[in-house]
């Protein structure tokens, strides 16, 4: 595999990426309904980030999920597992039909990503604040072994409550891990309340910058911009990169957007139809 920098998404590619994101959201909503599983809104929130990663940025080969030179994508916000599973299945890591086993007895697709069980899952997550330390270890191992892969860790904004995130942030900066990129899915909600009314995250970009990262804010639903920013890692700054991605929880379905009830609620069959219609994939 080569790690040459690809051009930013063209107009045509941007259109294709939007379509993939809509299909991804459609799958996530079906899965949530079939399993009556929580965290739908959290999964929809990061769907564009996941799309940019898997359909443009990541240097990965679904046929060789253990390739030592692959880019690593860690879903540190493990509760958005449905988004990861749907993306992996759509990319061919495992059969798309397996998505029907999401949360079912005896399956491989638990509510949070499992360890050593499913191709393409880099780390078992679900307890927040673990993905970035793991990613830093992976990045350092690459440096030691002379493997030029990159590490992307997708964090939730609520996850920034965890002290281990900031331990890892300081560590990555000290070690100059410029092949590490954090994307914060900043949808302004955590499980039961507004993020900034729970623990003060703002100014979040400034915090990451103060911790030694090349931090910038980005529209977390502009797939082209996300693709370009992520593809640019390492970006020559010598610093790890933090993308504070402003998002809307439940993005893509009008009656779910910014309504935190959908952190736990699962859609009815009627709501699935309505949502699919809005996404243009009915």
């Amino acid at each position, binding site marked *: 595999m080569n790690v040459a920098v690809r051009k930013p998404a063209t107009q045509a590619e941007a259109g294709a990426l939007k379509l993939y994101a809509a299909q991804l959201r459609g799958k996530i909503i079906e899965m949530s309904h079939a399993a009556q599983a929580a965290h739908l809104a959290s999964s929809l929130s990061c769907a564009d980030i996941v799309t940019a990663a898997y359909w443009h940025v990541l240097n990965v080969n679904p046929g060789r999920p253990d390739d030592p030179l692959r880019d690593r994508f860690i879903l540190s916000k493990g509760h958005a597992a449905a988004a990861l599973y749907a993306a992996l299945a759509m990319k061919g890591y495992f059969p798309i039909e397996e998505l029907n086993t999401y949360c079912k007895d005896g399956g491989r697709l638990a509510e949070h990503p499992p360890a050593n069980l499913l191709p393409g899952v880099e*780390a078992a997550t679900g307890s927040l604040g673990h993905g970035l330390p793991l990613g830093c270890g*992976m990045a350092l*191992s690459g440096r*030691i072994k002379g493997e030029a892969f990159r590490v992307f860790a997708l964090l939730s904004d609520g996850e920034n409550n965890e002290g281990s995130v900031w331990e890892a942030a300081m*560590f990555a900066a000290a070690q100059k891990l410029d092949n590490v990129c954090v994307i914060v899915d900043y949808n302004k909600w955590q499980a039961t309340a507004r993020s900034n009314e729970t623990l003060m995250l703002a100014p979040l970009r400034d915090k990451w910058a103060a911790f030694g990262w090349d931090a910038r804010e980005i529209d977390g639903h502009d797939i082209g911009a996300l693709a370009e920013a992520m593809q640019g890692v390492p970006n020559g700054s010598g610093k790890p990169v933090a993308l504070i991605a402003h998002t809307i929880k439940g993005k893509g379905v009008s009656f779910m957007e910014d309504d935190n009830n959908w952190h736990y609620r699962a859609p009815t069959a009627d709501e699935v139809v309505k949502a699919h219609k809005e996404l243009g994939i009915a």
Partner: protein
Amino acid sequence: MRNAFADELTKLGDKDSRVVMLSGDIGNRLFDKFKAKHPSRFFNCGVAEANMMGVAAGMAMNGLRPVAYTITPFVTTRCLEQIRTDVCYHEVPVTIVAVGAGLAYSGLGPTHHACEDISFLRSIPNMVVICPGDAFEVRAALRASMQQDHPVYIRMGKKGEPVVHAGPLANFQIGKATPVSDGKDVCLLSTGNMLPEAIEAAHKLKERGISAQVVSFHTVKPLDEAYLKDAFGRFKLVATIEEHSLIGGFGAAVSEWLADTRTRNQNFMRFGTPDAFFKKSGEQEYAREMLGLSAHQIAEKIISRAALRRDR
């Protein structure tokens, strides 16, 4: 023990480019040789143990053999979830090395005591728990850990403990107890830094006409069940000795084994720390004396128990 650890680690690092040392801002100058020889494989992770353990797991996921090291409570309970979820759930070969087990750092106070770590770590699936009895066992445990593919916890004392074994342990095996001396009446199963006390207790028992076998039961998980079966079948009395809480430690593990195997256990005694914090100032020797873990106290309790048994 800790100097032996640093020396052995440097040797292992010379031979195996997968060996990486992570320190939690501890061991000033201890790793100078390792750092000089392998500068790209030494990381001072700072006072951030949760991150250090996650970093170690991430490295091990990509084929390295990281060793994560700091003072016992900080490299165990402080980052217990990272040990459980990042290291053990993923079943990656991280070697966790703790210094100051039990009351080794008694004088530093209960924040630095560690009498619960065996209990926590042995309950985690995939974890191996080794408590070396002297510097040679530290070296052997570290070597053995690097030759296998699972998470390992090595619980060391501090520095300057008596060296029990005459030389390097060629036959050291994880999960196989190491007999230190032969006896026929009583079997003292010691784990970790209590080994010198156990040996001294055996001397005191000998003075009273009781022949005691001393065993370094360095691996608490997995237990050497064959050795236990033999010991409980052969000796009039078997005692576990550890500088760790009686709740959940080595003695508790043996108790569980006794219950599960329905082994006769009237001839079983446990020596360990009580269910209480040791708040007074004082060094390890003083703490052991206060908690009934000195060699002479162990010997006396065994003698009175043996006498009790004769009276029946």
